[in-house]
Each structure stands twice: as C-alpha cells, then as structure tokens.
C-alpha cells in the first residue's frame, strides 16, 4: 500500500512505463489517424471538393 510510514506525505503508485507508453501510443495513433484522414478527406467533408474529384497524385499515372 502506498503512503509513507506515520501517514505523512503523499506517495502514490503512479503508472509504470508500459502503461504510459501504450496510452500515449494509442492517443498518438488516434490523433495521427484523424489528421491524416482530415488531409485526405477534409475538403470533401467541408464541401470544398466533390468525392469524385481526382487528387493531384493521379497525374503520375500518365507516365506509365
């Protein structure tokens, strides 16, 4: 049990490295995914582009 002898002070058990790392990784994954999809599909969501309008990347196909 946490807490020093005599009941003085506040010495809790904070989460270990694994929990903190996995938590940060999941959070970072979520935000990264949202930002990535926002970059790809954000203009469609906000009505600035139609879903069927081509991305600029498709022009690379002309070189085949």
């Amino acid at each position, binding site marked *: 049990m946490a807490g020093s002898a005599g009941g003085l002070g506040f010495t*809790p*058990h904070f*989460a*270990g490295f694994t*929990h903190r790392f996995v938590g940060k990784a999941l*959070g970072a994954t*979520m935000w990264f*995914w*949202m930002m990535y999809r926002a970059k790809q599909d954000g203009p469609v969501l906000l009505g600035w582009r139609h879903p069927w309008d081509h991305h600029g990347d498709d022009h690379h196909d002309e070189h085949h």
Partner: protein
Amino acid sequence: MLLAITLLVLMSSVSFDDIAGQTFSIYIISIAGAESVIGLSILVAYYRLRGAFISGFLGRFVGTTGAQILTCACLFSFEGDQVYFTDWNFLITGANYFVLFVGWEGIGVVSYLLINFWFTRIQANKAAILAFNTNRIGDMALSIAYFVMLPAFGSADFSTVFSLPAYINQTTITIIGFLLLVGAMAKSSQIPLHNWLPGSMEGPTPVSALIHAATLVTAGSYLLIRSSPLLEYAPTVLLVITIIGASTAFFAATCGLVQNDIKRIIAFSTISQLGYMVMAIGLSQYNVALAHTLFHAYFKALLFLGAGSVIHAFGDIQDVRKMGGLINFLPFTYAVMLVGTLSLLATPFLTGFYSKDLIIELAYGQYSFSGTYAYILGSVTAGLTAFYSFRLISLVFLTKPNGNKQNYLNSHEASITVIIPLAVLAIFSIFFGYVTSDLFVGIGSDFFANTIFIHPNNISLVEAEFSMNFIFKLLPTIFSLAGTLFALYLYNYNPHFIDSLVENNLGLQFGYNISKEIDRGVIELIGPY
C-alpha cells in the same frame, strides 16, 4: 481465431477475383445471412476479449486462479457466458422466427442471472427482476406477433415470410410490424420500456459491456433489421419506429446529463445510441442501422471496460463526484476512454463518424416531416452526447481531485489481461469505421445481397449524400463540438456555475413549480380526488 476467420470471410466476400471468396460469400450470405456473420463477429470478438477482462476483473473476488477456473468453466460448460453465447448464436443464425425466439428468451434469462451476479445484494435482485419482467413484456408481444404471422403466412420460416408481404393484407402486416416493434422496444430499451437498462448496471462491468452495450440490447434492432422485407410493406410502422427511435435518443441523452454513477451515464448513452439505430431502421436504412450496431458495440464496450478499470482502480467508487484528477494515475485508461468518447461523438474519421453522422444525414434526406423531426432530435442529441461524455471525462480525469486520499494512494492501472482487450477495442474504435464503412453503407454495395430489403420508394442514400446543404451535414458535428467545449469549460474552468443553479432560488422554485403545481396539480385537477 474464429474472429480472424469471420473477418477473412467478410473481406473475401468482396473480392470478386477470388473464387474462394465468392464461394464463401454465397455460402455465408445464402444460408446464415450477412447479419448473422456480423452478429457472430461481434460476439466472438467480445467473448474472447471479455474472457481476458474477466480474469483480471474477477480475480479480486475469487482469486486469480479462481477467476481463471471460472472463466474456463464457462468456456467449456453450459453455464453463464457459454449459455449466453449459445443463445445469441440461436438468435442470429436461426432461419425462422421460432429459433430466433429460443435465443431471444435465452439471452433474457442469462441477462437476469448475470445482473444478479451479486445475488445477496437487494438492489441487484430488484434490477434483475425489473430487467427480466420488462423483457417479458416484449416477449409477450413477440409471441402474439407469431400468433398473427402463422395464420397469415402459414409459416414462421424467414424464406417464406419474406417472400409474401407484397401479397398479404397491409393491415395484417402492420399489426405484425407493431407487435415486432414492441418486442424490439423491450429488448433494445426504447421508451417507455427503457427502465431496466440503467438498473442492469448492478451487474459486473464485463456483463454490462457485453450484454448491455453490444449484444443483448441490439437483439431488438437485429429483429427489426431481419424483418426488413416485412416492415417495408408497413409504412405506418416505419413512421412509428422513426418517432420512437428519435425520441428515445433525445430523452436518454437528457437523462445522461444528470447522472452521477459512471456506469449509469454510459448506460443512458447506450439507450441514446440504440435510439439512433431504431431511428435508422424507421428510415428504412437497415444497412446503416446494422453498421451503427457494430461500430457502437466497439466503442461502447471500450467505454464500459474503461469504466470498469476506473472503478476497480479507485476502490469500487462509482460516483464521478468523488473522483477527479485521475489522468496522472490512470494514463492508459484515460487514453482509451478518450478514444471511446471521441468515437462515440462521431468525431470526424473515427469509427462512430461513419455510421452516426450518416444516420442523421439520412433522416434529413428523407425530406419528410418525420425525417426532419428525427434530424432535429438527432442533431441536438449529438450535442447533448458530447456534453455528458466530456462531463464524465472531466469529472473523472481532468478536474481537481475530489475523492478520498486513500483511494488515490491505492489507485493502480489494471493488469495486462485488462490492457490487451482495451487496446484492441481502441484500435477497432479508431480504424474499423473507415475500413468497413464502404462495405456496409457504400453506394452500390451489395454486401447484404437480398437479406435486407429496402423498398425503392424508401431509398434515400443518394439524396442524403449529395443533395443536402453542407451546413445541415455539418450541424451535428458543430453541436458536438459546442457540447464538448461547453462541458470542458463548465467542469474545468467554471464549476461554480453548476452550484449557482441550485444555490439561488430560481432553479429550486422552477423545480417546485414543475413537480408540485404542474405534475401534481394536473392530477389533482383531473384525477379522482
């Protein structure tokens, strides 16, 4: 492994170059029904994840070894979870209404037994009896539906019943539809048969996560989706379903705003989301309803299991007013609950976005009165959902600590057996919607083949996708954002505003007027005395 096979089947069924995929898809879809596969995938995913969670969660009560023995016993014998697993399989894979009913009743019985897990607790006894009795009301209506169906169709077989609605008297179809609706209302916790679900939180949290978030409560909407060929010929029933669903979604969200038990907040959130599913069914968008059922299962189970982790960490405290500041003590739990919450709010590009926002758009895309009613309620509910979700996050994790010092000294993150299910559900809550949305709700997707029937008069996906003004499309997201920001401001920067609502005379006088003068006054005016 079964989940992997199921997902493989799902993925291969859309791979038209693959003869194995075509064979699988023909077999599965023609015999079991696509909904059954999805139901199976939900159940298998949760069963395995939940088994892992239970070992960690129940370990405190019966010892780790005892919990593992109990979990294994349930896996290999027909008790508890295994019965539920079996009954749920009957429900979703049955080829006629009678087999469905066997599973329907069975899951109700198991729900009663599992809510009553701590059977020496009177509140648990009462909640279990309430749950079972309310489910029995639905079962009675479902039985009467069969009594009408058998003379009308001569069979309860799906293949017979779904072939004939176009040739049967519409009044008969309407009566059957209403009775099926009452059955679904009880199981899926629609108003006025919703009372049992918050009470069912007396059961262990893994039970709440599996049964009262993901599987049992979706049995009602599953019944209605399966009966789509019948309901499409009963437009009156669809209208009533839409209104009940939208009203339930709004009502439950308002209830969730003022709950103090962490599990009850999530329970009312579940009722609200079930209202969305039923609303989608009323709008004849059965594939979207099923997609929301599946997506909701992931993030709601994540929220429940995360709440269980918080409760376990904090000495079995369930009152959010006695928590606070847990972000530093439970960083992983905070992360997964944030993922679940943002997915629930249909934050753009997370799992919930691909079904929930679509339901609201489809409501408006009907361009009818009931559709607009559903749209307005759905949009306002989205804002309320955001508010109570971030109220929960704020009060549990972000605000200054409000609890007992000893609870903070003893708080600890859960073991690896709990971490893994939470992490898996979080991954699904982030990615699953984007990966599979086109499969379920994409324009031209034939994933459901002929298992779902949408009458051509009711097809409105193209109108919803392409004819709506963008402000109407973005309004639910704007309301969600406003609700989030308001909740974060209110509970983190200006908590005294809430106190001032009850400290001055205005709020109390208003409450007095409502209950003593309007409620009781009306009864005294028109009542017997």
